């Protein structure tokens, strides 16, 4: 019995929760580099809507993703609480920094693995593969996101588009 207890205590993870429209999400703080105030975003022409553009992060260019659009919600409206969470994701063993636009940052939570519930397969519009699970609050749920997964598919989609584009060019040239 003693051993089991130790196991559970070992698996406490810290999460940062944030708000998109009326719903709460969270990501492991290991993924979070910093939180930025909203600043002017430069739109890159002819890119998908959810890719809001680029900002200057200490002299480097950072892509910003509108999480609301990414999850099929209406475009983020800027308020004083709107902010950009800079996260570190891993695609093909390559680290990549990315800004995600959220309506508000909520709090930092310590959640034991045992407290994470399975995400229900019905009643939620989000794909299970993007979710690590659910954390139950007194008055609702926090959805724990698997950020790497979300952007892994992002990358493959982009790659496919790029490939088909290259293919097209080849045909027209020859």
């Amino acid at each position, binding site marked *: 019995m003693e051993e089991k207890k130790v196991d559970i205590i070992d698996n406490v993870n810290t999460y940062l929760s944030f708000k998109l429209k009326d719903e709460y999400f969270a990501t492991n703080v290991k993924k979070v580099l910093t939180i930025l105030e909203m*600043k*002017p975003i*430069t*739109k*890159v*022409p*002819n*890119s998908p809507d959810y*890719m809001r*553009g*680029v*900002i*200057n992060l*200490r*002299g*480097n*260019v*950072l*892509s910003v993703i509108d999480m609301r659009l990414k999850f099929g919600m209406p475009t983020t409206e800027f308020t004083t609480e709107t902010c950009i969470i800079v996260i570190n994701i891993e*695609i093909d063993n*390559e680290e*990549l920094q*990315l800004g995600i636009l959220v309506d508000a940052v909520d709090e930092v939570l310590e959640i034991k693995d045992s407290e994470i519930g399975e995400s229900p397969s019905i009643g939620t519009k989000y794909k299970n593969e993007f979710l690590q699970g659910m954390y139950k609050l007194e008055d609702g749920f926090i959805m724990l996101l698997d950020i790497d997964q979300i952007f892994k598919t*992002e*990358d493959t989609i*982009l790659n496919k*588009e*790029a490939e088909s*584009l290259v293919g097209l060019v*080849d045909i027209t*040239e*020859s």
Partner: protein
Amino acid sequence: MEKFREKFIEEASDLINELEKLLLEIEGDKANNELIQQIFRVMHSLKGGSAMFGFHKIDQFTHHLENIYDLIRNDKLAISDDILDVTLASVDHLRNLMHEGDDSDTRNQVQHDLLLSKILQISDENTINKVTSLTIQETDNRAIDELATYYISFKPKKNIFKFGTNPLYLIDELCDIGETKVFVRTDNLPDFDSLISTECHIYWDIFLATNQGINAIGEVFIFADDQCDLKVNKISDINLLEEESFLGIIDETIKNQKEIDINQLTQLTHDLEKVFIRAQKDQIKEKLATTNVDTNISSIRVSSDKLDNLINWVSELVTIQARLSLFAKETETNGLVPIAEEVEKITRRLRDDVFSIRLIPVENMLTRFQRLVRELSHQLGKDVVFKTEGTETELDKNIIEALADPILHIIRNSLDHGIESAEERQKQGKPKRATILLKAFYSGTNVIIEITDDGKGIDPDKIINQAILKGLIAPDTELNKKEILDLLFQPGFSTAEKVTKVSGRGVGMDVVRRKITEIRGEVDIDSEINEGTKLTIKLPLTLSIIDGLLVQIDDTKFVIPLSSVDKCFEFKHTVLVNSVNNLIRTDNNEIAYLNLRNLFKVEGEAPETEHVVAVQFGDLKIGLSVDNIIGQYQAVLKPLGKLYKKQQSISGATILGDGTVALVLDTNQLITQFAQDETKIGG
């Protein structure tokens, strides 16, 4: 140790490259003694290093190779093509050995034995009396000449133990900095009855041979300074402790004398020194011949990571400085503007200097071309000489690296297809020996590299036939000469009638063009039948900073590279909207324009007056409409990030003075991408 080995491999690769270069140089100038000396020196350093880091095979191998050049150096052997062939092959082999370590595979082993036997054959044939100086050099260790001998008289005060100082530790420490001979003097020791065990009664005479100077000795005693009587005297500039006679003398002196008389000692050592120095002189002479005479450090080795970091910081500084200048202008605080201007001046100079660090002369990549021409012309039975001009022209290291492969390909093509056999050349009345010339020079903010051969040139009719055959163009297409030659850069085009080992494997000039475009360069070809072919490569000076024109569309700011900007015009919005077929009248002619507002799907209304920036697109001028032209801007290029990699019309981003991001347009890509839809857009 692993780290040192890596360092060695890096250094050894440099040595091998240098060796290769020298060998190619000496081929054209066989009587040059200075070159032979240099070759010998390089081999010797390579040998020394590899022995030290456990590359025994390389060590052995170079040792035998070195023997040959020692013979040549001593005029016992004349350098010949055979020897050069073997040495060049050895250079390749050394390179393999270096990367695979000593446990290389059997093929390498065979190669190793083969070369070794050739080398031994050459050196054995020519060694009549094999008394070379080599054996001496090997046992002879360096650094002897830097040692000096000191005499230290160390007399602790009686109360030294009260301070917690242990004299023996101090002596131990001395032993650590060099070779020592320590004598304990016990003659002050009182009788056992009157001995006080908490007091120190003994003292020491120490002879120390070290290369660390007198200060290092002082440091040992730094905390015991006032607890002892210390005398430190330099008695000789050489290591006397190695000399038997000296040891005998001091043994004698210590035995007989209570105090050592310094004057007497220095006089003695002075006499001894003369003898020793004469003995050493011969050894030193040899060392001078083998180690690099040039001891001044004129360059230091820095890892390119560090350089990249430095450049990043400078780029950031440039950005911050732009912000400072903007802020100074806006706030109009007294005194801030001059400071901002000063910072701007210094930043600019710093930037120029730092960016120039990364520039390396074109010369650095020439050796492999030279090698290629040498080997391939032998193989193809053609007599070709490779000439270079303007090799001091400098380019960014990254560009040079990216350029090597395309140029190799171009030269290979030249040798294989361009240059005729010697007989054919004679028939044409051309000199028997063909020339390939690589010429580099600056042109504005660009560097031009021209590769010219005097071969048979390219027949436009052949290209057309080939292109029709491959379905690249329709049979009735009318093309001018430039367009025809440009077909060579089409994917899947190769004029080689049969596939040779050298070229003609289907991949060809299209890869060359793609590689060069990747580093923002351009490549063009020109050719006259029977006169030769010329390839012109135009490159930017650096990849990380560009001069641009800052423009604005809606809220977004863009940078158009100044190198492609031709002229700017102002137009009423209504004129643009009503233009027929997107053609607008400028000066005396009509040019086509692209409405960037529409292409970029920018929402909102265009201002009443719009601007059109005419950019060069091949031989054409194309206008790009923007809302506003802000001015010239030095843009530090930043990658846009992985997620935007399919954005071909935007080559990167830059950070403006106010901290926002501007996008850098790649006008060539932009126009190519949208040219097809040209008629649909605008209006």
